[in-house]
């Protein structure tokens, strides 16, 4: 790796951090999803308390050409609330599992947010004018005494302070028996998928009282259950194609033109396993926690517990690239099973031109893999490196006996500091990295 430590020539700088500084983290503040919109101007976060916060990028200022605009709060609202299903004795968390933006079609912005059971379509719109000079109402809304109305006037629109309003436009409920883990908007901008552990449903964005079940892997006898669905995603430009990943490490690609029910996959992607290497942990660590198509649509990336794999859609037999995220954890699996960390679901993301992929790890470390230059780097999201525009120093975990200066040993890693959610701006080198309750924004160093 170069002296700068970045992949290829990119050096990453701290830009902003959002959230409370104190170590005592309220459960509601745990960030559960992060997503840029299609232009990158907006950045949405969801948390365990069911709240959504949207940040908007300030326009680049001529005074500071060396950095791109900062992200400031644009809108915040309560998306979901806790519920208790008395009939099934089920507590329904308000935690936002996923947010997905719709491509922008008019002045307003739309996003889908989901908890375990209900998906909602939110409209975020700006209001910067209001009508004034009504004939029958006072400015505060009270109705005027008609006897005092002696003239007629035309109300006019006058500017007002910008107000950003979020309103729920659709509520897609009661379609999932199990817990919704992902949603994906189709490139046709008319439909979207929602997946729970055993089923995938297809919705029309306009219709809330009906949805089509297109994948059902529930066995007739639940004793025979061997795998669950872990993620689903539509192809970025083929509106008939989607993939879903499983807890057994397989990815199935389905074509909706083939049949109404896509239980039979068109392709199945699975890396063959060496039976000699099989252990108690093999299946658990092969469970795919995230699947993402490249922007080009030619590749897809999967994240399992220890690695990131890139698949060519034309080759089902094995991935074309495999990157080890934290291989040193393989000799810690016993402890990680005992403290449940082995079940942590890490996400992954592509950069705008599909040349670099990123994913999180423990100790607030996150990793980037440059596919072209075959380089990787480990960086840390920490308040200690939070001087404005300070360059992030690469981090290293020492695995052998000798620990070099500035390296951290595996046993010193903080497994409570997990980076599960990261997002990359669709066009620029700006990344959003979520620690437990803070959101870090890093930008490429520009000169």
């Amino acid at each position: 790796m170069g002296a700068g430590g970045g992949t290829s020539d990119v050096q990453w700088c701290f830009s902003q951090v959002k959230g409370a500084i104190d170590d005592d983290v309220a459960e509601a503040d745990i960030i559960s999803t992060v997503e840029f919109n299609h232009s990158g101007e907006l950045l949405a976060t969801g948390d365990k308390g069911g709240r959504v916060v949207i940040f908007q990028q300030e326009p680049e200022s001529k005074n500071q050409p060396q950095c791109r605009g900062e992200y400031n709060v644009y809108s915040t609202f309560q998306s979901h609330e806790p519920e208790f299903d008395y009939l099934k004795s089920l507590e329904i968390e308000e935690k936002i599992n996923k947010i997905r933006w719709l491509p922008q079609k008019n002045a307003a912005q739309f996003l889908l947010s989901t908890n375990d059971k209900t998906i909602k379509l939110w409209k975020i719109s700006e209001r910067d004018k209001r009508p004034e000079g009504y004939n029958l109402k006072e400015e505060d809304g009270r109705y005027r005494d008609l006897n005092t109305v002696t003239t007629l006037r035309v109300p006019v629109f006058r500017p007002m302070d910008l107000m950003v309003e979020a309103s729920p436009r659709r509520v897609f409920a009661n379609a999932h028996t199990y817990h919704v883990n992902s949603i994906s908007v189709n490139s046709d901008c008319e439909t979207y998928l929602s997946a729970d552990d055993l089923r995938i449903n297809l919705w029309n964005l306009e219709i809330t009282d009906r949805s089509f079940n297109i994948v059902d892997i529930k066995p007739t006898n639940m004793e025979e259950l061997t795998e669950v669905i872990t993620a689903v995603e539509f192809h970025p430009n083929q509106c008939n194609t989607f993939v879903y990943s499983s807890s057994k490490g397989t990815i199935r690609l389905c074509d909706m033109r083939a049949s109404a029910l896509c239980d039979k996959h068109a392709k199945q992607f699975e890396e063959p396993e060496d039976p000699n290497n099989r252990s108690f942990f093999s299946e658990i660590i092969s469970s795919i926690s995230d699947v993402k198509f490249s922007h080009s649509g030619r590749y897809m990336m999967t994240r399992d517990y220890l690695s990131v794999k890139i698949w060519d859609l034309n080759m089902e037999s094995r991935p074309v690239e495999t990157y080890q995220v934290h291989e040193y954890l393989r000799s810690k699996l016993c402890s990680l099973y005992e403290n449940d960390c082995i079940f942590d679901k890490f996400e992954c993301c592509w950069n705008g031109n599909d040349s670099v992929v990123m994913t999180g790890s423990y100790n607030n470390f996150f990793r980037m893999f440059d596919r072209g230059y075959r380089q990787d780097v480990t960086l840390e999201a920490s308040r200690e490196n939070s001087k404005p525009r300070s360059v992030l120093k690469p981090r290293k975990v020492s695995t052998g006996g000798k620990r070099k200066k500035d390296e951290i040993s595996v046993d010193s890693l903080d497994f409570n500091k997990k980076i599960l959610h990261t997002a990359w701006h669709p066009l620029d080198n700006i990344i959003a990295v979520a620690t437990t309750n803070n959101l870090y924004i890093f930008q490429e160093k520009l000169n």
Partner: protein
Amino acid sequence: MSGDNEETQTTENTPMDEKQVQDKVISPEKSEEAKLKARYPNLGNKPGGSDLLRKRLQKGQKYFDSGDYNMAKAKIKNKQLPTAAPEKTEITGDHIPTPQDLPQRKPSLVASKLAG
């Protein structure tokens, strides 16, 4: 995280070069598996099997019976009733829900600190 020394998994009193051969033969995963089975001898052999998955599917399951609940609510002033155990794993039928056990509708919600 356990501070276990890796060397305790291989056979004791092994000279350095033999140990290196041993480390190649026993994969780190398999030695971790041996450690786990030593701590939990009753662990089954199907870790990803239906037990684990069914536990995952049942997340959020609480016990609630409206009849018991209303009876408990009526009697609560007079009698001491069995209350919820501190752990979340309750066995259906062993526990009668009382008004204080039931998940409360959270009080008027505070804004996210990210927006602060």
